[in-house]
């Protein structure tokens, strides 16, 4: 059992605050992805859990044990680094065996575990090689095997796939998911790639400017963004936002459309909808087509709505021309509203 609790963790580097009072709990065997743009503090948070960075404030608990005063080696973790960090002076076998030898396991067990994890990562034919004789993808496999061989309670991964080329990344992503699910460890995985996050995670913690904005399942994060940032960061293309002004009877007027909306004291709030959640019809938002991008399965149409950009994903057989005036009807159950001041969902 290795649940992780991060309680009020803050980190300052000189005058710069990398993390503000972060709270996060991760269940045993959960796959948690920390997602955010570079500089949002996700790697710092991971390194604090690993013990490579000391928090300025707060506590870190792993498996019911407070660890923020312990060195990395006493935390029951293993880590996979972005640049692999495979020891160049040791063979692949000795790399995977490194942690086991530090634990002073008997030679027979070391061999057993190395062979088993090497087989799992499909690198059993590389055991006698050195890091310099491996490709990037193979090095990544060695790094993962080295972490798995430790049979840790927690595996921490810092953008492990970002140095691989696109095709290899896709292959490794699926493989990692299978291997980590089978290993029954708790995983924290840092990435800036939303597709990676969506496909791997049990839960995604979206980070922005040193705070966790939302921590929820991938579908929840996608469907019900807790804040404007989440909607604008996740999704390709991201959510559309249009200003809405108060109309009579608690409804809101949005680009020529009057919609029932949330109760709010504000005169102006923001209407939001995902590009795939609109249909072209006779009723809806008034839009002028600017750019048409046929993508095969569907067509991405960039329009002008109320002087702002609006992207809509339409069926590929929709016949639209640049300059057309469209009516885009939002699906009522997919409409979201945001407070422009606090940027939180209403």
């Amino acid at each position, binding site marked *: 059992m290795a649940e992780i609790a991060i309680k009020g963790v803050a980190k300052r580097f000189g005058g710069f605050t990398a993390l503000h009072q972060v709270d996060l709990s991760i269940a045993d065997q959960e796959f948690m992805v920390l997602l955010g743009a570079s500089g949002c503090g996700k790697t710092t948070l991971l390194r604090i859990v*690993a013990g490579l960075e000391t928090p300025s404030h707060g506590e870190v608990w792993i498996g019911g044990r407070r660890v923020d005063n312990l*060195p990395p*080696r006493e935390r029951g*973790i293993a880590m996979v*680094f972005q640049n692999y960090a495979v020891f*160049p002076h040791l063979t692949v076998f000795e790399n995977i065996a490194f942690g086991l030898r530090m634990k002073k396991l008997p030679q027979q067990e070391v061999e057993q575990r190395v062979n088993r994890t090497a087989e799992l990562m499909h690198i059993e034919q590389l055991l006698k090689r050195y890091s310099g004789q491996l490709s990037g993808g193979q090095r990544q496999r060695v790094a993962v095997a080295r972490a798995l061989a430790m049979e840790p309670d927690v595996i921490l991964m810092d953008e492990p796939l970002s140095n691989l080329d696109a095709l290899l990344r896709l292959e490794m992503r699926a493989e990692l998911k299978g291997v980590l699910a089978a290993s029954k460890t708790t995983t924290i995985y840092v990435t800036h790639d939303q597709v990676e996050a969506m496909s791997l995670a049990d839960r995604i913690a979206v980070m922005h400017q040193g705070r966790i904005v939302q921590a929820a399942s991938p579908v929840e994060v996608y469907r019900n963004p807790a804040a404007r940032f989440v909607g604008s960061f996740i999704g390709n293309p991201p959510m559309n936002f249009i200003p809405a002004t108060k109309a009579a009877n608690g409804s809101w007027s949005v680009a020529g459309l009057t919609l029932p909306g949330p109760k709010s004291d504000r005169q102006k709030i923001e209407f939001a909808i995902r590009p795939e959640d609109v249909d072209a019809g006779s009723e809806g938002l008034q839009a002028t087509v600017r750019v048409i991008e046929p993508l095969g399965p569907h067509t991405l149409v960039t329009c002008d709505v109320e002087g702002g950009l609006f992207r809509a994903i339409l069926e590929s057989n929709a016949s639209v021309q640049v300059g057309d005036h469209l009516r885009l009807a939002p699906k009522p159950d997919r409409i979201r509203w945001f407070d422009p001041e606090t940027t939180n969902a209403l």
Partner: protein
Amino acid sequence: MSAVAEAPIATAADARRAGGWLLVATAILLSVWVLLPIYLLIVNALSSPEQVTAFPKRFFPSFDVGSLSFFINFAGVARALWNSVLVATLTMILSIGFGAPAGYALSRFDFPGKGTFRFMVLMTRAFPLPLLALPLAVMFIRTGLDDTAIGLALVHTTLALPFAVLITFSLFSGIPVELEEAAWTLGCTRLQAFRKVILPLALPGIAASAVFAFTISWNEVFAAAVLTIENRTLTAFLLQSLGESPLYLKFAGGAALVVPALIFIFAVRKYLFAMWGIANR
């Protein structure tokens, strides 16, 4: 028309060719400037005493080891040689003992005054040794360090230390910190991670830096001449005694000094380039 059009192109090509020749000529001139004296030194050291004083001069050695063997058996040479090796070895140990940890600290830790520290390390080379020699000699006599191997080694260490710090700094900086961090997460203490991961990777460079410190001490003559009397190092001994010696002995002594230093420097040249950030491996 065509001739007019071609003319500027031809001039540009000429200029480039002339520039190329100039570069080659300069390179040859500088090489000869450095290599010719060494070559003549070796030719004469390997010639018999008669050949050295004879005229015209020979440009090929006769491989007569008479001068060299006479030099080796010359009274005091063996002792001076031993002193040189002793002082240089002590210098090597001290400079790496102090320099490598300093280089490691500079590459791995951020501390206030880091930039100033690096600058000051270099600035130690700005003090001319002759300026310091007299006060040093007085101080050494007072503390009883004068005329001892360890005393001279301390002075040589000050000379060698900046290089040891800078070479090891660039060496450790070239080793990704993630390797160390990976070792920590795999069960190592800071010291174990250094011993099992960083040291094996840095060892060739540290050895090179050690050899360089050895060579600095081996070649140093001023402090050696001022601070030692009985326990002369080879350089100080040669300075003192070869002034009145016959020509062939001077050549033999010179060769005995120059050749080991040359071999050492040649062996570690790639790490010396690394010190200036040209290439690390």
